[in-house]
């Protein structure tokens, strides 16, 4: 299996603090890879470098053999990396449908003059975009919620809408930042099988940041563990669970003794 994304000695410093310390990281095509670690381990910082929100202090990111280090977020999205946010960041006053339509921005062409004139081409494109957006909402379990303002949606539905919006960018690689945070066990179980479906039906590669070990161990092909910005373990869920440094990082030194 070819590697979809390769991060080479990626590093991020905030002032004197090293948030991510020369981490090597690869994501094979059509894999589900999880990134775990205690709070403050640098997971989200790592995510933000991959998506262009932060500029790496040093190191390199290759996506499909293209160097994306230092590219702005919209360019990275256009190349095929979609994401959700840890603390939900929907466009709150827009409807569910409009949120998904914004996700399609880079895939639509409608220019200024043609939009004002309402040319048949633009109308057709808009009609198709609306159809596709409704289809994505259905796929994510939001049937009939199209016209609802996103801030009025239930919490779980907001999480689903974030995924629908990310899917609208037509990603090859989907980055999910703690998608099950705040979900009850039933919702979490549903979401876990949904992530599996994303890979199998949509042929996506998925990178997951997750705290719920049941989700991580159930769905991942590979797990990478960060602690204090360093990669301390990497391997299959079974290997990582038995790794002493991982147990130490989560439970403290006494637990390993």
């Amino acid at each position, binding site marked *: 299996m070819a590697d979809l994304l390769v991060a080479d000695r990626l590093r991020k410093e905030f002032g004197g603090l090293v948030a991510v310390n020369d981490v090597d990281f690869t994501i094979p095509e059509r894999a589900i890879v999880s990134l775990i670690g205690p709070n403050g381990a640098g997971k989200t910082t790592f995510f933000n470098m991959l*998506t*262009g*929100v932060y500029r790496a202090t040093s190191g390199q990111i290759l996506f499909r053999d293209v160097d994306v280090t230092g590219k*702005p*977020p*919209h*360019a990275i*999205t*256009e190349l095929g990396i979609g*994401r959700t*946010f840890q603390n939900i*960041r*929907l*466009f*709150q*006053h*827009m*409807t569910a449908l*409009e949120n998904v*339509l*914004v*996700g399609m*921005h*880079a*895939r*639509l062409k*409608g220019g*200024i003059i043609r*939009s*004002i004139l*309402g040319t048949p081409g*633009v109308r057709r494109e*808009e009609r198709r975009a609306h159809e596709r957006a409704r289809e994505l909402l259905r796929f994510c379990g939001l049937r009939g919620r199209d016209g609802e*303002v996103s*801030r*009025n949606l239930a919490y779980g539905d907001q999480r689903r809408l974030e995924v629908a*919006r*990310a899917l*609208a*960018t037509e990603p090859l690689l989907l980055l999910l930042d703690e998608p099950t945070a705040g979900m009850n066990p039933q919702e979490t179980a549903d979401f876990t099988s949904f992530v599996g479906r994303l890979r199998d039906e949509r042929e996506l590669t998925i990178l997951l940041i997750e705290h719920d070990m049941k989700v991580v161990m159930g769905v991942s092909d590979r797990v990478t563990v960060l602690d204090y910005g360093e990669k301390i373990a990497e391997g299959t869920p079974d290997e990582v669970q038995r790794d002493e440094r991982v147990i130490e990082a989560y439970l403290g030194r006494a637990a390993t003794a």
Partner: protein
Amino acid sequence: MDAARGYWERIPARGWVLASVVAVLAFLYPSYAGSLAGLPAVGVYVPAVDSMVVMIVFTMMAVGLNVVVGYAGLLDLGYVAFYAAGAYTAAWLASQHFEQWTFHLGSAGLSPELPGIHLSLWLVLLVAGLFTAVTGILIGLPTLRLRGDYLAIVTLGFGEIIPQVVRNGDDIRGINFTGGSFGISPIDAPGFGETLSGAGLPVNYAQSFDRARLFYWTAVALLLFTVFCCVRLRDSRLGRAWIAIREDETAAAAMGVPLMRTKTWSYAIGAFFGGIAGAYYASFKSGAFPADFYFNISIFLLCMVILGGMGSVWGVILGGMILGWLNVEGLATIGSEIGLQDVPRYQFGIYGIIIVAMMLFRPTGLIPERRHKREMEEGVADTPLYDVSHGGGGQEGH
């Protein structure tokens, strides 16, 4: 009442129906303005046709500003710069200012020997729009990297710089560009020239007995054009991107919206309409003077947007017409009716009170943007702040 409302809501495209009715009434205004003015008690408050021209021109600028402030959520306190750019474009391309050259292109009803550059005013409006849009891009490139309050401060700076440049632009390397503090006047009026006058079209507005009406009808047409473009853009891919940026810049970028390009477009389009309005107003007044371009105009336009409802085109039109009327005639009329002649001197105090009252009782404006209205009707689960808007909505009988 409810039955009537239910019936109204079933009409397809009711927004456009209402808009067409308003547009027809607006075009006919000169024919019934006289009878309205004759009404007892309220007649004195009916604006004259040439006051309406000023009100409409300022409303047009407010609709343009709404693209920047309302749609894209960029607080621009220097919109007057675009007004000035448009006005001076008209002054350069349709007056005797550059008397060293004599150049005529489609000028209406003027002697071909008249010195200066005289382009057809229709062409001037287009050039003014484009030139101002370019100005908007040039101002936008360095400033739009800033967010929120910082952007507001820098645009405020540009709004202050422009009148100073205009005031001192009468000797740039020996060339008089702006006429200094005297400004440039007179400026040509629009018209259709001798060739088209056979079709019943006026040769030149300024030479016509119907001057005020002609300027009025053209202003209405320009406003309609502006509104049409802004509504279409709002509902387009670009409009969605603007609103996404207003809602959450980081998320918008992560969804593939290029921030700088999208924001710059909002500036350019807002500036385009500001430029056309500025050029048209300069032609109507037959002059461009630096004293017209002070900071208070930017705030005045912003007040129109806030009063009407940020992001709501129909709201901004209403807000623009109300404040425009108060500014041109209303305050003076009210003052003389209640026997206090110096009411107009307190105009900015009065506008300030209006804005504070709006913020307290109806922060989403007289006609809130669709998405905010929806929120008020459906109610929001959290944020006690919105209790205020619930109260405001209730009193309006919604």
